[in-house]
């Protein structure tokens, strides 16, 4: 099923895909085993002349062991799955590696607004630029996201990055990612937000280094673009 996932272009996407794979194989094994045992019983114990059913209640510990031991193994494997997934979750949602470019994302009915702080590196200043539906980032650099919503709950979803975060009116949420491959990728809204929900199609444009410089020059023609491309100062933890 992993082959159906869109191409991963993010540093942490591979971790998510790995946990998915782990679950897939563990769960797939148990699923096939259980179905096989079930169908074996269903066929083997079909009503047959001269074969009476066995009166077995499964209420002694030795009989119950046939159920409880597999369940214990399932539990152990489940806890292993949690142990594998926990650090991945923490890496993406609880910690944020410092540095990189900053973008303010605002979801609204029915598009994504991306606000760039400009060469001064600060929001709410004169050189901020807001672009609808286009998230421009440099390749191989951290992107620090500040996520907001204007009206209702939306969900910011970049499938190729394996990033999803609901955005809430009245709250500011932090996120991050680091794209490893240049190109154009789609952004979708993953939380029903009204009749235009299906139409909230945005684009992540990951630029190679030179290309990114070009783009910066285009947005802020009169300023020193080298300063604008410098990584921002280290930031506080993800959840504020």
């Amino acid at each position: 099923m992993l082959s159906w996932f869109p191409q991963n272009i993010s540093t942490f996407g591979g971790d998510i895909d790995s946990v998915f794979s782990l679950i897939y194989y563990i769960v797939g094994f148990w699923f096939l085993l259980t179905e096989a045992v079930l169908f074996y019983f269903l066929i083997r114990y079909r009503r047959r002349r001269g074969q009476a059913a066995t009166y077995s209640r499964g209420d002694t510990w030795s009989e119950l062991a046939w159920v409880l031991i597999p369940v214990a193994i399932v539990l152990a494997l489940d806890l292993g799955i949690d142990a594998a997934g926990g650090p991945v979750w923490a890496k993406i949602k609880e910690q944020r590696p410092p540095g990189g470019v900053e973008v303010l994302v605002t979801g609204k009915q029915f598009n994504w607004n991306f606000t760039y702080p400009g060469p001064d590196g600060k929001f709410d200043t004169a050189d901020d630029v807001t672009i609808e539906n286009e998230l421009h980032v440099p390749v191989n650099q951290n992107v620090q996201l500040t996520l907001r919503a204007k009206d209702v709950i939306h969900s910011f979803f970049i499938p190729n990055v394996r990033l999803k975060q609901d955005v809430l009116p009245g709250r500011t949420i932090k996120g991050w990612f680091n794209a490893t491959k240049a190109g154009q990728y789609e952004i979708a809204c993953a939380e029903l937000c009204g009749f235009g929900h299906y139409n909230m199609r945005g684009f992540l444009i990951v630029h190679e280094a030179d290309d990114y410089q070009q783009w910066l020059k285009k947005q802020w023609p009169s300023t020193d673009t080298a300063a604008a491309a410098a990584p921002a100062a280290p930031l506080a933890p993800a959840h504020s």
Partner: protein
Amino acid sequence: MQAVAEPLHGHAHGEELSFWRKYVFSVDHKVIGRQYMSLALFMMLIGALTALLIRWQLAWPETPVPGFAWVPEPTMFAGVVPPEFYNALITMHGTIMVFFVAMPFLLGGFGNFLIPLMVGAEDMAFPRLNMMSFWTIFTASMILVASFFVPGGAAAAGWTGYAPLSADPQFTGVNWGINLWLIALALEFASFLMGGVNFLTTAINMRAPGLSLMRLPLMVWMQLTAAVLFMLSVGPLVGGAVMLLFDRTIGTAFFQPARGGDALLWQHLFWFFGHPEVYVVMLPGFGVLLEVFPVFTRRPIFGYKAIIYSTIGAGVLSFVVWAHHMFVSGIDPRLATPFSVTTILISVPFAIMVFSMVASFRGGSISYPAPMLFAVGALATFLIGGVTGIFLGSAAVDIYLHGTYFVVAHFHYTLFPAVLFGGFAGIYFWFPKMFGRMMNETLGKIHFWITVVGFNCVFIPLFLAGAAGNVRRVYNPMQYDFLKHLAPIHQFATIATVVLLIGQIPFVINFFWSLFAGQPATDNPWKANTLEWATASPPPHGNFEKVPTVYRDPYEYSLPGLAEDYLPQGVPAPAPRGV
């Protein structure tokens, strides 16, 4: 409330009732159970219709749905579903199926019909309250159906009704549709609170002599657990529904972030109820399976006590997993770990139940009439739903899968087998008891095979769509380049939906034909042990000629050394072989 010294029904025994009091405003739990079932089947038609329209739009976006050109604007446009109506369709599909099909079918229908019979009682503890509970949900259903016809259309904020989308009419364009939706839900909750009081009081207080709790049929245990779960979890959402209605109508600030309200509060209130609710609808479905299996394997259920303890454990745990629906919702990320752990733990009782059910086939002498086909189909298919839940319970993987078709496929793979396959198994099994006639076996088999193949063909593709990142509740996924390759998947699923719906026709024919012309049923056509089979088919008013006494556990099949391979609970001494 019933006094000890007063006749149950408010009339003397032997007095003949008018048509209205016998068939419409009846206080007899058997009539009420059938009324619930009829309501559920009617609402299922509407729910199935919504599914058809949704799937058509996904497969062939913005093309006219055959046969729907008559629907007036602005609901549809010459047979084409517009985005506004699409959102109403997905909302109403979920709401109708969970609250107005699954619950009335399994709890209102089977629970009402079976509990007094299985415990050896004459009727429910509070027959008039029982009648009131049916007419309450009937009213709720009419209000919900009416909401399709108000200006602005039906509710369109999802069956989950997240605020602030649902809290302000300007966000959806729907005004009275969502208000009526809230009122219908509140009435539905009231109906099942009334029912729950009845179920619990009856099963606790009115059991036949000798029927201890550990001799109760598992169906009764499942209904009781469902009733307790519902009664203890719905309260906060009742409060939430009042809060949402007030936000929409009198300007309160509960879910208005600009005025201090909190968008997440609704989600907590909803899912605190929402998670136990899915077990409320699943457990009675399991109850059907647990009654059908021993009868057609002719051996006891494996691990009766283990199943009971697992059910109770799952019920308790269901109150502490709700935030797994909210991993990426904006809650403190540190909460994800504890909720991931509780979610993983809840798979333990379900694994015990499923493995015990599988073990219940070993050493059996198994036959496969229609009820057994559906019951086995339910178990085999439910497994897929169960295991795919593991993916979603891992917060890290849920980052990607949340809000995609993977979730949709997962919950259809748990709900459909438990509610519909289980429900159909129950109908084929208890139809003789309810209506005094047997259903046609050939039509039943046809119904089964089309349903099981059709269902899997609809929903397996949706796992793939979800894996590909297809977000849910989107009017036209083909807007996105990265989803365009899924067009054949959606078309396949839609064709399978049509086949699945057509496959229900044999059932409808069978049901109505058998009602009038089915072979008359004996008291105990399946040679089963539980008390409902110890009386006539259908049971007379008052259920039993005299109060039964219970002598043993419910699943004593194939006891060695006996003449018969079954031993009913109400029979004192078994006939030994050779006599």
